């Protein structure tokens, strides 16, 4: 076998896959803005993505804030800069940890279940049935999910910001013996609007990506139960990779000098 031909085939297959995904994303976005709309389904998805992800996002950001306070205190104590702990915790939570961790958690919880649900609908012909009942599956299944992900992730991250900073506060006050007023004052002085806004923009993009990948892999699944399982796995893995890639790109856009 010619190795160059194999590389060429793999590269063409990659381009084809990217093209399919971009076309799918474009179709999904156009369906979001064109009627008919399905508010009941949108509301159900918003509750599922937003409300039911709240515990897992809250726990993740709480403990991340706590461990960040502990670790940064250990590091800063070497330079007698313990006073920077509150600022570092709040910056890290708002800019990076809350959006990335919330994105990854939602990818695991929601992206996989979306891929499995839509994948099962595909292999049991429910998606074909939608087409025969005057309903566009892209509009009915995909558009509400992507819109819900795009809208709810920023809200989740906003809550995660507060809880993560609160985690750092608890450790700072009760373990590291900071004064409560001083810790809060440090947090206010360090955090700027752009820190929170950049985190929320990341969250919106991650919400779009997670739901897009869940819908895309579910929609294209084939081959019965094995295919549905593969779709769920692919949805989580591709979401996680895209979250990390886009996290760098958005950080670069916001903060690169």
């Amino acid at each position, binding site marked *: 076998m010619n190795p160059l031909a194999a590389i060429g085939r793999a590269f063409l297959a990659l381009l084809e896959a990217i093209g399919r995904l971009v076309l799918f994303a474009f179709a999904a976005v156009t369906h979001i803005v064109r009627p008919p709309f399905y508010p009941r389904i949108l509301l159900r998805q918003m509750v599922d993505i937003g409300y039911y992800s709240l515990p897992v996002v809250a726990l993740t950001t709480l403990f991340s804030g706590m461990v960040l306070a502990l670790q940064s205190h250990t590091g800063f104590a070497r330079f007698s800069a313990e006073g920077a702990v509150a600022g570092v915790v709040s910056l890290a939570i708002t800019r990076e940890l809350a959006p990335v961790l919330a994105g990854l958690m939602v990818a695991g919880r929601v992206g996989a279940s979306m891929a499995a649900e839509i994948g099962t*609908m595909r292999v*049991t*012909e*429910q998606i*074909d*049935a939608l*087409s*025969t*009942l*005057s*309903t*566009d599956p892209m509009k009915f299944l995909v558009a509400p999910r992507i819109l819900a992900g795009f809208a709810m992730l920023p809200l989740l991250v906003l809550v995660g910001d507060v809880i993560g900073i609160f985690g750092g506060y608890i450790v700072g006050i009760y373990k590291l013996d900071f004064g409560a007023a001083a810790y809060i004052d440090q947090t206010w002085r360090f955090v700027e609007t752009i820190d929170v806004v950049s985190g929320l923009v990341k969250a919106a993009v991650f919400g779009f990506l997670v739901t897009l990948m869940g819908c895309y892999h579910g929609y294209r699944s084939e081959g019965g139960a094995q295919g549905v399982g593969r779709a769920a796995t692919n949805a989580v893995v591709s979401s996680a990779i895209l979250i990390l890639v886009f996290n760098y790109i958005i950080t670069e856009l916001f903060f690169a000098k």
Partner: protein
Amino acid sequence: MSGSGEPKIRIRGLHKAFGAKSVLRGVDLDIGAGESMVVIGGSGTGKSVTVKCALGIVEPDRGSILIDGVESVGLKGAAREAVNARMGMLFQGGALFDSLSVWENVAFGLVAAGQRTRREAKPVAVETLAQVGLGPEVAELMPAELSGGMQKRVALARAIAARPDIIFFDEPTTGLDPIMADVINDLIVECVRKLGATALSITHDMASARKIADRIAMLHEGRIVWSGAVADIDASGNEFVDQFIHGRASGPIRMAVRG
């Protein structure tokens, strides 16, 4: 065939390949208005693909499907939805939406097409369920709570709820015991007759085919190899038909071991 001579559905030269595998190789089929046509054939001969082409779920590579003389191949968006609004489909596995209750499944097409609001559609759904022998207590159940036979009835109710003038049945008796299969066959005959609809069914169940068909066509290797009245099938003189209806392993039809 309709009195005017114009078939309700006219399929000509339908071709479809999936990768290197050619499934349909020039299907020609006419179905008259109010006629019940059954397409028989072995697994993998292209029966389901033919129906999915007619519904616009699968895009044929070439060929024509005229419905009331109007080309339906290549229709997209609202034009396709308008054609599909006149059609009903009973899927092989039922394909009921498992996140919706039974009445919501039956009423789905009515609400989606804007014919009824949800509130108006519910009594219509309950009435349609009664037509397939299911009581109002079933309406609030979820599909997972129903037996296979009941799911088929609900799927039939969904297919006829919008009073379509064309109904497709994909293996309507697959997976059912013989008695329930006969009940479903009777329901299909009754519903199609009451609606005055044109029906295209695909099956490899000969008992079902004999019961619901006015005419039968046999599909083999992507082409129609015989068609005629149901009464003529035992004397078709076609070796493919003879082998199929008698279920003989030997004959011109060679079953592929792998797809």
